[in-house]
């Protein structure tokens, strides 16, 4: 059963079509990626979901129209958006504080999770004292403690160096297997999408529409070697081909 469902969502900014026609669904406990070239309007989609912008079409959550946007989604932006003036502990409690929880209660809520997120001992540090990977983990911790129905991850590892990014992808896959968050990930990294997702929606360049929906058939935990790796790279190559040669799809389409 699907929790989030979008039907023919469109959005234009001042006559410029950004989203042409987006229909997609995300099931409970499912990890879904939206993969597309830069500037395709992927982030615009999240702006519609979080209520920062309004578009046409239907957006449903658990069958009901999305109206009170803040309630369902916990949003993790592209850069970590940690507040430099707050210590890591107080950065991670931010969402709970906005929800109206007292600071002490929020801290008690978040503190036990620091070990699992590899941040134990860094509660009193400022963000500037942490490495890029740790900052992203703190940002994810801030996102998941909000206890919302669904995570929206906007290129969460885009600003990291390649090695850290790979390490973070593995870490996230492992975390996801434990928690089974319902998650929608925006990325332009094909490997990341294949490694993390149950399903992938491939977006076209602007105006964005969904050109292909791909089920990722591999079992979890996602293995990194042998037969799996070969299948994964075959799928990655196929997806890259769809993105980089848009004409070939038009030919294969009826």
């Amino acid at each position, binding site marked *: 059963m699907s929790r989030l469902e979008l039907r023919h969502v469109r959005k234009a900014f001042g006559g410029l079509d950004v989203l042409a026609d987006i229909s997609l669904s995300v099931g409970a406990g499912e990890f879904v990626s939206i993969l597309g070239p830069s500037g395709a309007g992927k982030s615009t989609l999240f*702006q519609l979901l*979080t*209520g*920062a912008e309004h578009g046409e079409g239907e957006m449903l959550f658990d069958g009901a129209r999305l109206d009170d*946007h*803040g*309630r369902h*989604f*916990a*949003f*993790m*932006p*592209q*850069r970590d*958006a940690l*507040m*430099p*003036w707050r210590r890591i502990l107080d950065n991670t409690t*931010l*969402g709970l504080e*906005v*929800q109206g929880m007292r600071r002490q209660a929020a801290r008690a809520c978040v503190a036990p999770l620091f070990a699992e997120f*590899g941040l134990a001992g*860094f509660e009193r*540090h*400022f*963000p*500037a*004292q*942490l*490495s890029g*990977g*740790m900052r992203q983990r703190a940002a994810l911790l801030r996102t998941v403690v*909000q206890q919302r129905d669904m995570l*929206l991850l906007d290129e969460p590892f885009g600003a990291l160096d390649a090695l850290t990014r790979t390490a973070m992808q593995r870490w996230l896959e492992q975390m996801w297997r434990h928690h089974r968050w319902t998650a929608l990930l925006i990325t332009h990294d094909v490997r990341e999408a294949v490694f993390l997702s149950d399903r992938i929606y491939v977006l076209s360049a602007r105006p964005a529409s969904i050109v292909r929906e791909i089920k990722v058939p591999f079992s979890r935990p996602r293995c990194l070697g042998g037969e799996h790796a070969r299948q994964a790279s075959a799928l990655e190559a196929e997806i890259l081909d769809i993105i980089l040669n848009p004409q070939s799809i038009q030919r294969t389409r009826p």
Partner: protein
Amino acid sequence: MPAIISVGLLLLAWELYAIYSGIRPTILPAPSRVFEQAMLNREALADNALPTIGATLLGFACSLSAAFVLSMLVDFYQPLRRALFPVFIVSQTLPLVAIAPLVVLWFGFGLAPKIMLVALVTFFPMLVALVEGYESTEVEIGQMLRAMGAGRWRIFLLARLPSALPYFFAGLRISITYAVVGAIFAEYAGAAKGLGIYMLNAKNNFRPDLVLAAVGVSAALTLILFGLTVLVQRLAMPWERAGKKTEGKGPRR
């Protein structure tokens, strides 16, 4: 430390010139003579420095509060910016030399015109610093807070206000130096007491040594205020130093 050496060398050159050129001390007194006279007249100097300090701090407090309130209004209601900023920019072009006597003429020899002039020269830099500081808030922090369900006021308090702190302190350091100069100018134009009027009287009595002594006091005053702002900044923004200390050798994983 290098600053102390360069100032020391400058004073030494001045001292030597004053001794060996045979110039009269009523034209150019040597630093040693200025210092000597300053010590002899220290009670008068202190007596006259107090009103200057008072005018500086009061005027600065006024302009800070005004800049703070107005910067918030401008941040919440952008059209105000276009309506008000031209007026303030024009206020910055007014030559202090011309304005100071007029303000004294209108408001008398009391504290009020000094406060007004100090506020006039420091208000706009502080307003610009605050408004630009709010604008410097990371777009993504705003997006994230909105997605969390925070309203405008909440976002202002949680994100925009702390984001403005570095800009605020940069503005503070600049305008605190203007503030002392502004106060002295106002007193120069007319006052019962103060470093400005003290300088004017000393000049009229052909006592350049006392003028320079008063200049020294005002310079010391500015330096102390400047140092205070740096101190307050350190206390108010502990994360800045924490970030610098570990830069490049932060924990990696």
